[in-house]
């Protein structure tokens, strides 16, 4: 009985090791096809990013210079390290009432950890993660960005 277990052990070890060697052997033989290395500065034009890569937070604007941000500050609350600061203002509506709207969406790239929590918190889908990653600048102040474009306003019907 002991011998049976022993031989089974040895057999299991050998077969599983051979299975692993088969995989790496396959990779070795097909390295031209399978290699996943990107030779970055050389292939800047044809660089392919992974889908889940997150580079920075952006706020997409449509052709009428309108975005979907209502200034609810859900992203600011969701941010774990104070990357986002939203400055709101009161704007008059056509009916004569005053309505809260966004004045400045301040995004501090140097504090951001790309955790994606703000994008998940946003109820209107106003912000998303972009895949740009060449962020180095000579002046640190340039990393504090204003995400909403000048004179942009919230899209009609977004509440």
């Amino acid at each position, binding site marked *: 009985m002991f011998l049976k277990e022993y031989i089974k052990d*040895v057999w299991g070890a050998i077969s599983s*090791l051979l299975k*692993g060697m088969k995989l*790496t052997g396959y*990779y*070795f033989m097909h390295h031209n096809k*399978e290699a996943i*290395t990107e030779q970055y500065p050389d292939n800047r034009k044809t660089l392919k990013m992974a889908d889940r890569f997150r580079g920075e937070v952006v706020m997409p604007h449509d052709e009428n210079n309108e975005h979907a941000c209502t200034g609810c500050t859900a992203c600011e609350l969701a941010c774990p390290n104070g990357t986002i600061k939203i400055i709101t203002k009161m704007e008059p509506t056509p009916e004569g009432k005053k309505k809260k709207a966004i004045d400045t969406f301040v995004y501090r790239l140097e504090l951001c950890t790309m955790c994606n929590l703000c994008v998940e918190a946003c109820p209107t889908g106003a912000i998303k993660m972009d895949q740009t990653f060449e962020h180095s600048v000579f002046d640190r102040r340039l990393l504090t960005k204003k995400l909403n474009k000048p004179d942009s306003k919230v899209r009609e019907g977004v509440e």
Partner: protein
Amino acid sequence: MFSLSHITDLVNAWLYQQFPPTLALLLQFVIVGILVITLFSILGLVLIMMERRVAAWMQLRLGPNRVGPRGMFQTVADTVKLIMKEGMTPNGADKLMFNLAPYIVMMVSMVIMAPLMFADGFQIWDINIGVFFITAISSVSVIGILMAGWASNNKYSLLGAMRSGAQIVSYELSAGLSIITIVILTGSLQVSEIIAAQQTGWWIFKGHIPVLISFVIFIIAVTAETNRAPFDLAEAESELTAGFHTEYSGMKFALFFLAEYVNIFVVCAIGATLFLGGWMPFHIGSWESFNHIMDYIPSSVWFFGKTFFLIFVIMWFRWTFPRLRIDQLLNLEWKYLLPISMFNLILVTLMAIMGWHF
């Protein structure tokens, strides 16, 4: 047939004709020394390049591709960098031992070269206890490693060296037992005779199952003896920074690094000699014409081809298998490899007595 033995005989005759015997012998020593050192440096460059390339391809990377055509000069650049670095000796270290250790490790791998047969009639010293000599000398390298670990005055170094000691002492046993199976079949310890016995076929084919088992055990044991992954506990980067050579820098580190690769070459050369027929071409029983064609490939090509194939297999192990824990390592040796190789030894002895091999 082209053979290197003509050249060596010619040089030998010329030296003895020109100089008195003592001086001729000394000159031969010098020539052999220069050849061995040249082989060492070439092996270092080629094997490290090969290792990096194999590692990259198995991990779906590209590997070195910047220095020279297809990155071929990367190891040369690395060597130049290591030469330029300062070889520091820590204050608390035992100065003599610390500086002696890399040379001992290096010298051991040089001395093992002596009985190896690189081609037909191309051998430094055809000693009649060749295989025994190899196993005896190769266990000296553990002294160098222990010396390095102890003299460094560093807990990582000491731990690495102690692990390495336990490991080499244990795996020497099963490596020795699997070498003995071939000695039983050949009836000789002399390297040239072991190769000559494989004229009609390599032992791995002639000895079928028992020799195949001992070949597998030999490969596992020498992987452990050369301190390579999955048995690289002696330097386990993630646990002990660099193990026994944590404190070494510059060329002293390079000597350890080089000795590791040369040791791989040496053990693979021994494996190729014992199991795959050394420089002997691939012969199939009585197929005269096939054997004749195989004879046209130079013997040195056969030897280096087999050796590099085994080196590739060992590199394949390294980049596939995860590292063992120290208790798993000793379990593997004492509970599995040693009993199996002892049983295998009986099997081979029976086979040799009854003549069941081809």
